[in-house]
């Protein structure tokens, strides 16, 4: 039997118009296709509704980019972001599109290291490298980038990135006292002003209320998917779960919500019919920590390759993105912006101090997901998650939760060591 390799669709003419390094990008496209084929299509018994998400990957550098360019042609703003603290509702309310930018691949790191210091976060380097090397169509398509101040590497890299693409910065405070929340609300208002300026329109109360509904519906769909993953045995692999959380950052939100709900309907059927994806006795693992940006499937590949299954991601590309909803009962522009800010301040990123909520949340998600152990994953040089690890570890010790901490980057050089550590962790849980 010949297996047709998975193909990421090529759009060389559109890429050339976007001033991309086309020959190089085309190579990256083939590599991504191969990686996807190996990591995803080799999985057995995937839900049929995953076809839509496979197609979102096939069209990641084509179909979706066309949609962004069409929106731009209509004068709608397209804004690139790097953080779940940037309020997408405001972009939607202005008729715009908010996309999470590329930043999960080793391939672009050397481009960044020509300019940025080497000893900083791999996600920041990867993202910067995608722009510097002109190998991310999203970066090429956006009107501007809206950054934030959630870590030092990003905060200072924005200044350099701004020389390549217009980059604005939202100040996210580091504590959650009233005066910090006041500042936050003012920053949200500044963001709204900036988006309105680019969109050439004023956001009305109805616009914002509608956008809040769209985003809440999207979060509810993701919450629903997450709770279905918590079923034992789980009806979907952790890799597929993570993939959907990753696609959430660039897909059109209304369509995405419909497709996630359709998948959830299928998963409910599977649960009824006792269809499980991994072996029924597969060890259930929860991942906590730093985001895994597309195509960073390193930990999931290793864990699920060893016969276990991941049932929850406590991460920005994971529950932090969708666990909280905006109160839809708020009225008036000011009231809605306050409700919106209230929701965003519930996100428990380690950039805050203290961040006790996150410790509680990790344990809660561990219980909810019926996991048997936690892998805490931190990107290299992510100081806040790396240090918060100490408190997560202590909490796991207190609760008697099997726990493994992994600090890694996007390169493949530590795969052997990680495989040993992960397999030993699974042996430890199994004993």
């Amino acid at each position, binding site marked *: 039997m010949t297996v047709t390799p998975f193909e990421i669709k090529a759009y060389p003419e559109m890429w050339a118009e976007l001033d991309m390094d086309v020959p190089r990008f085309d190579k990256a496209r083939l590599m991504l296709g191969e990686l996807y084929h190996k990591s995803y299509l080799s999985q057995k018994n995937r839900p049929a509704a995953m076809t839509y998400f496979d197609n979102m990957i096939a069209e990641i550098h084509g179909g979706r980019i066309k949609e962004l360019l069409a929106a731009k042609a209509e004068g709608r703003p397209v804004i690139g972001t790097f953080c779940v603290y940037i309020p997408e509702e405001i972009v939607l309310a202005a008729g715009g599109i908010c996309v999470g930018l590329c930043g999960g691949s080793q391939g672009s790191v050397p481009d960044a290291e020509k300019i940025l210091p080497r000893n900083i976060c791999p996600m920041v380097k990867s993202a910067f490298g995608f722009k510097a090397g002109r190998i991310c169509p999203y970066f090429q398509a956006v009107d501007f980038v809206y950054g934030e101040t959630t870590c030092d590497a990003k905060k200072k890299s924005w200044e350099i990135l701004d020389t390549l693409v217009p980059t604005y910065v939202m100040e996210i405070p580091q504590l959650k006292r009233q005066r910090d929340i006041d500042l936050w609300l003012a920053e949200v208002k500044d963001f709204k002003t900036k988006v309105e300026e680019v969109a050439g329109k004023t956001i009305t109360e109805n616009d914002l209320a509608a956008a809040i509904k769209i985003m809440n519906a999207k979060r509810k769909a993701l919450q629903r998917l997450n709770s279905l993953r918590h079923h034992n045995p789980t009806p979907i692999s952790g890799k597929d779960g993570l993939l959907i959380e990753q696609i959430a950052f660039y897909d059109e939100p209304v369509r995405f919500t419909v497709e996630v709900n359709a998948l959830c309907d299928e998963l409910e059927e599977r649960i009824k019919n006792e269809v499980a994806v991994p072996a029924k006795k597969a060890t259930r693992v929860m991942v906590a920590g730093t985001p895994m940006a597309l195509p960073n499937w390193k930990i999931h590949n290793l864990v699920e390759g060893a016969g276990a299954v991941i049932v929850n991601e406590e991460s920005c590309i994971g529950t932090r993105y969708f666990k909280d909803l905006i109160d839809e009962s708020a009225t008036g522009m000011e009231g809605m912006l306050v409700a919106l800010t209230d929701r965003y301040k519930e996100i428990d990123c380690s950039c805050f101090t203290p961040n006790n909520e996150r410790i509680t949340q990790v344990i809660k998600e561990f219980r909810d997901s019926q996991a048997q152990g936690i892998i805490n994953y931190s990107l290299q040089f992510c100081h806040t998650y790396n240090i918060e690890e100490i408190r997560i570890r202590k909490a796991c010790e207190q609760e008697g939760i099997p726990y493994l901490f992994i600090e*890694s980057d996007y390169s493949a*050089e530590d795969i*052997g*060591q990680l495989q*040993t*550590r992960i*397999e*030993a962790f699974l*042996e*430890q849980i199994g004993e």
Partner: protein
Amino acid sequence: MYIGVDLGSRTVKMAVWDGERLVDHQIAASGFEPHRQAEKMIAGYRAKRVVATGYGRHLAAEHFADAVITEIKAHALGIFHYFPGCTTIVDVGGQDSKVISLDAAGRVMNFQMNDKCAAGTGRFLEIMAASLAYSLDEFGRAALGADREVQINSMCTVFAESEVISMKNRGIPRDHIARAVHGSVADRLAGMLARLGHGETVAFSGGVARNPCMVELLGQRLPGVRVLVTGLPDIIGALGAALHGAGV
């Protein structure tokens, strides 16, 4: 007969367990095809079960092994065989260093492993020995005999090598530098042990445990702790794999 094979980064180790005792063992360089090397080593035996561990365990399973376990579990089983009651293991091999804590029944409770670099591993010692023009055996002996210990600051193999070169060029005797290199590895292991917690005895396994200076300096850095080493620290992992095959 139960055979355990440990396909490590530098050497392949093989241990034969007859159900009651270790009856044979072999150690050979891994070479380019570690699984072929391992196959040669087990060729003369009729084994009921062959269990593989080490970096090449999955490769071995593709070719001949009946089952695989990780080095962590293998060392736990091997050390429990020699030192039941000892709940802490330090295993330093060619590419990894690990500290493992066990419960009273020998089950793995927790472990730590070095990150993706050669710091604190056998490979680190090899590179440092070469830059001081010692053979590996001489290196440990010279370091043990040195009457002074200077400080090496860098744990990164690349930077530590530069540091060693600059020490040589400051006229520091090479046995002092050798001792400093050993000291830096012992510091790192002691740090890993402190983070994980340890009992009153610590079993030292892996090829690096044959280095007398490493044993001595690790003991010095763990006051009140007895460091236990078997006569054959290299084959602990292979023995553990054989014991696993025997259902121990």
